[in-house]
């Protein structure tokens, strides 16, 4: 009887609630509209592509971060993983792998891409093992791998840049620069990659048992475990996925610049966390959406690029970014309170 009633939002404050739920999109429209009016050339095609490319880098990391945060964890190591993966791709292009007596093995672009992704996933795997099997708090475990990965990146070149990564046609790696610079059907390759990764992640989140388990682990780890969720496997997956996303970013940057610098990706993890939070992901776990996160990444990128175009001092840019993040979290709290109240009213209206 009552169970059959439709799931439309209850009367009360539906308009406010809808507005709050869509706040990330509202924020996107606001920053977009603001800079379209205020910043010269903001709407030009060339600029739009640049902004989108910047946003994509943050968005990749933020997608991986969203899963991690939904399980109630945090991954501080993604920025360093970006740097490490950049260096690995640079090394592979320049030197290949030295097999001693057999000679040196060189790789084509596809092989390099796969190896680098494996490196990223491996860093995530280490994070996952530390957190699940060895019971280290996520913050500390990933802080440790942050330093280790960064150190390894610096060691790989002695702190120097790997220059001229244009690849070598003899080994089939001359297509490497296309990852970051190429276009397909008019859109940059990395935007296509973002669309692919975003769709896969959103699919996992909404239509697979794994996705549901990710939310359950973040909502109540004990309860999930007692319901038959393999908590450790879920956690292992999210950190490995986060490492995978970081590897993509590392590849793109190395390809775009045709150079790999060991400091690549410093503080990227903070942008990724900010984008996820801006997109409605709750740091206490259990809540977050991939779509929201991607929009959040665009808001942050448009904000910083737009401010640059308006030649606002970079010091002010930092302050403004911080204010936006704080405001997002405050609004997020208000929304969840309102949502809980509306749901309670609905149940109460049922007359017990």
């Amino acid at each position: 009887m009552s169970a059959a009633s439709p799931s439309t939002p209850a009367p009360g404050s539906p308009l406010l609630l809808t507005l709050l739920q869509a706040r990330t999109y509202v924020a996107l429209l606001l920053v977009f509209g603001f800079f379209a009016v205020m910043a010269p050339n903001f709407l030009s095609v060339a600029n739009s592509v640049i902004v989108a490319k910047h946003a994509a880098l943050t968005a990749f990391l933020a997608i991986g971060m969203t899963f991690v945060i939904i399980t109630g964890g945090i991954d501080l190591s993604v920025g360093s993983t970006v740097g490490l993966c950049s260096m690995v791709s640079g090394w592979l292009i320049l030197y290949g792998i030295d097999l001693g007596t057999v000679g040196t093995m060189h790789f084509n672009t596809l092989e390099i891409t796969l190896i680098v992704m494996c490196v990223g996933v491996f860093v995530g795997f280490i994070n996952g093992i530390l957190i699940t099997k060895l019971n280290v708090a996520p913050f500390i475990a990933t802080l440790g791998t942050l330093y280790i990965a960064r150190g390894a990146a610096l060691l790989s070149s002695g702190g120097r840049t790997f220059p001229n990564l244009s690849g070598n046609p003899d080994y089939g790696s001359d297509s490497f620069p296309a990852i970051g610079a190429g276009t397909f059907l008019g859109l940059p390759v990395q935007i296509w990659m973002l669309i692919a990764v975003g769709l896969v992640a959103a699919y996992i989140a909404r239509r697979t048992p794994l996705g549901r388990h990710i939310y359950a682990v973040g909502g109540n780890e004990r309860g999930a475990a007692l319901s038959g969720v393999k908590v450790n496997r879920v956690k292992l997956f999210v950190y490995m996925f986060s490492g995978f996303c970081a590897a993509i970013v590392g590849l793109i940057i190395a390809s775009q610049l045709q150079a790999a610098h060991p400091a690549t990706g410093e503080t990227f993890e903070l942008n990724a966390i900010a984008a996820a939070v801006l997109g409605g992901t709750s740091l206490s776990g259990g809540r977050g959406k991939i779509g929201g996160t991607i929009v959040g990444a665009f808001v942050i990128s448009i904000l910083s690029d737009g401010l640059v175009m308006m030649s606002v001092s970079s010091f002010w840019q930092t302050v403004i970014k911080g204010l936006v993040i704080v405001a997002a979290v405050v609004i997020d709290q208000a929304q969840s309170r309102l949502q809980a109240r509306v749901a309670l009213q609905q149940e109460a209206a049922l007359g017990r």
Partner: protein
Amino acid sequence: MTEKHPIGLKMRGAVKVYPGTRALKGVDFDLRMGAVNVLVGENGAGKSTLMKLIAGVEDMTEGTITMDGREMRFRTKADAVAAGIGIVFQELNLFPNLSVAENIFIGHETTRAGIDIDIEAHRRATRVLMERLEQNIHPDTPLGNLRIGQQQIVEIAKALAQNARILILDEPTSALSAAEVEVLFRVIDELKAQGVGIVYISHRLEELIRVGDYITVLRDGTITGARSMEGVDIPWIVQAMIGSSSKEYGRSEVANFGPEIFRAEAIALPRAGGGFTVDHVSLSIRAGEIVGLYGLMGAGRSEFLECVMAQHPHAGGRFFVEGKPLTERDVPGRIARGIALIPEDRKRDGLIQIMSIRENLTLSSLPGFAKLFHLDLKREAQTALDFIKRLTIKVASPENPVSSLSGGNQQKVVIGKALMTGPKVLLMDEPSRGIDIGAKAEVFRTMRRLAAEGLGILFVTSDLDEVLALSDRIIVMAQGRVTGEFPSGTEAAKVISATTAPAQNSKDIAA
């Protein structure tokens, strides 16, 4: 007698309402000084709530407390402490990382100039207290190094250190050894002689009769008996505790048990620091049978269920489902074999509060809705709706968060989640905790129906009424061991006596 024991605290018309339940319904209580006022009642009768009101831990909804003719209002524990009321909770509120002396003076440290803690004064005072309590405990010992019984003594010392005129002891002996109980009783006698009014809560009826001067019996939030201890015996207490009218959840149809569906053999869960929390428990359940597992708090019943659900990997013993050994070591494996657990603490273990009702219902059986990795959301929603109807869960929408439901409906969601896995054996830990009478009856009817459908049900309860009315067979546990097994229709007194019996003969019973 009355002049000898003046009334130190008078409570009139005390009402305490929690969201959804009335825990106390107009209670009058007189606390006499220089005497032991014992308080009995089943779990959930309102004993602890009553004491929390007196100790200022909870605020009264209605009613008055008067002390020495003045009306008092305890809004916080500090108010009550200022009025000379100390309470020792059943669950210890101590800091294992701090020393004994630091624990005793936490929150009311003796200081020099308000900032510098006078450690020497703490040590001295602690030594005096420990002498008074006949304990050889050094003030600097880290509390975590003490046995639970000793920790309880420290908790009492903490109340004494604040010069309590009224001391409330909530189940103080549940963790004590026989020798420690003797010490405690001597301390109580001494405190009585000093004119301290003591409230003593316990489930051990013999103990109450021995130590008490006045007795108050609570049932369902009202007082059903209050008198001087003279002439009180166990049958009188039991009568007042459970009343004459038995609640009717009785079996309507003829019992029709199938073959044995679940068996546990010598399940042993070692306790940190020696002994066993679950001490070689063996039991079996037949298809269609409801077995009640009764006992006091800390008897090891919940831990036994946790062992069945693979929560204690180091537990010994073997389980069998339909005669085949249960070798799966993780929860999903055991769920797949037809075991389902409805945990005691819904909020902590049973539900994902921020997820929707639908998502909670299907959480344990998601792989069943997936082809490879693709979830069939339509079929999932349909099945969730089916279960909502079948269990008559009252919801506005299955998409609302489960936290918006009342306790009884939340419990039904937990039951629905367990049932969706298609279990053969249902383990229910305190299935009626925190839900109102109407919902309770519905949950019990559901249990009856499930049993009739051929499930084996093992349910843990601390409610004597419930276990007597609902069970086809009653198994009693005490101190980790099975101390008695009774057919349905056994007298209440027999069941109660088994809860405190030292179980030397558990092996024979199990056999």
